[in-house]
């Protein structure tokens, strides 16, 4: 183990986390839209005519939600709380933010992970097949159609699917994560209900990702097809199926793994629209509700948890990688 590299890597993780927390805190804390403004719009002073004391104490409380005091001390307090796992209370629901996010996270992870994996494996198979028939009529029509579909935003897919399959034909439910008539738990009725409700959100995310994977894999396969080692294997009489799988497929797929991390980020962003369209109780839906109600602690909590997971996930991957393959000698110069 290269300890110098490890210390440098840990320091970069701490700095990245610190910068993330400070920037997210400063951006939201000093935004012109205070959560107090959101709550104030639902308060009518005339309703408090009988209890003027209650009204003034409410206003006093709401004013504490606006930025006040020394910003440096506020920032230090916030960072200290985050380090101790305290992300604060949601201004709207008065529940710990970490708990709200933990309740919403499984639904988003479920639809994002499933759709990414389905679209990835389908995309590489279809893309590879298209590359082998490159220049044919089928290839030309499919590639042009896919290029057009690539430009369609995710919320259009989601809106079309919910309208056609949900409202017009009533094939799939139009909202929620499971039916209220089933008992939550690891029973068949609940699992079927969860899969049934997740079908359209997963399909929307899969469709938008699938097109990208097909085009990407097709282009990669075509570039690998022209490599010398493929020609040499053909001349040497290696079986066509082995050339396609081991020589071409394995090499063409490598750059796609790197794109996978971008696709996951894209899907998390896309889940905002999908969850809003399908009323799916995930992080995207939670974030939109938090943004519209200026619920800063929830917004900051979502950003911090997602960013922390990516940063720590990368750190563990680097450590595992250098442990598994010492040849890599990560960080050594």
């Amino acid at each position, binding site marked *: 183990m290269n300890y110098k590299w490890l210390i440098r890597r840990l320091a970069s993780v701490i700095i990245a986390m610190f910068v993330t927390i400070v920037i997210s805190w400063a951006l939201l804390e000093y935004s012109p839209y205070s959560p107090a403004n959101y709550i104030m719009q639902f308060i009518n002073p005339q309703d408090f005519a009988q209890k003027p004391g209650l009204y003034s104490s409410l206003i006093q409380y709401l004013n504490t939600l606006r930025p006040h005091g020394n910003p440096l001390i506020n920032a230090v307090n916030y960072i200290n709380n985050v380090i101790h796992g305290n992300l604060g209370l949601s201004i709207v629901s008065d529940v710990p933010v*970490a*708990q709200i996010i*933990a*309740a919403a*996270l*499984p*639904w988003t*992870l*479920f639809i994002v*992970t*499933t759709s990414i*994996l389905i679209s990835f494996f389908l995309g590489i198979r279809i893309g590879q097949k298209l590359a082998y028939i490159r220049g044919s009529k089928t290839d030309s029509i499919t590639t042009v159609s896919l290029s057009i579909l690539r430009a369609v935003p995710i919320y259009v897919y989601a809106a079309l699917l919910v309208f056609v399959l949900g409202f017009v034909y009533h094939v799939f439910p139009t909202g929620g*994560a*499971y039916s209220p008539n089933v*008992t*939550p*738990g*690891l029973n068949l009725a*609940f*699992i079927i209900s*969860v899969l049934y409700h997740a079908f359209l959100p997963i399909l929307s995310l899969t469709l938008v990702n699938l097109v990208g994977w097909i085009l990407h894999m097709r282009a990669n396969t075509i570039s690998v097809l022209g490599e010398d080692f493929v020609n040499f294997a053909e001349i040497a009489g290696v079986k066509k199926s082995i050339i396609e799988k081991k020589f071409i497929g394995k090499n063409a*797929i*490598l*750059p*796609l*793994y*790197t794109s*996978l*991390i971008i696709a*996951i980020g894209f899907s998390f962003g896309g889940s905002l629209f999908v969850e809003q369209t399908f009323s799916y109780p995930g992080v995207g839906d939670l974030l939109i509700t938090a943004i519209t109600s200026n619920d800063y602690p929830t917004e900051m909590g979502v950003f911090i*948890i*997602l960013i922390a*997971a*990516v940063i*720590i*996930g*990368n750190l*563990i*991957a*680097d450590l*595992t*990688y250098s442990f*598994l*393959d010492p*040849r*890599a000698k990560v960080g050594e110069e």
Partner: protein
Amino acid sequence: MEAYRTLLAIGYTLLLLDLFSIMLYRSEAVLFPQIIVLILSLLIIIYAIVQIKHLR
């Protein structure tokens, strides 16, 4: 090589988020998605580790 490292990072990121959820929110309602994500993220990690070992 970098490709499998990225895959490993994705697996760990998903696993960390799922573990965060499992530790802080235990409910019958979210148990199924939590288990599915746990299985998928572990599969991604195992696949990446096998491929990295195979490269050696």
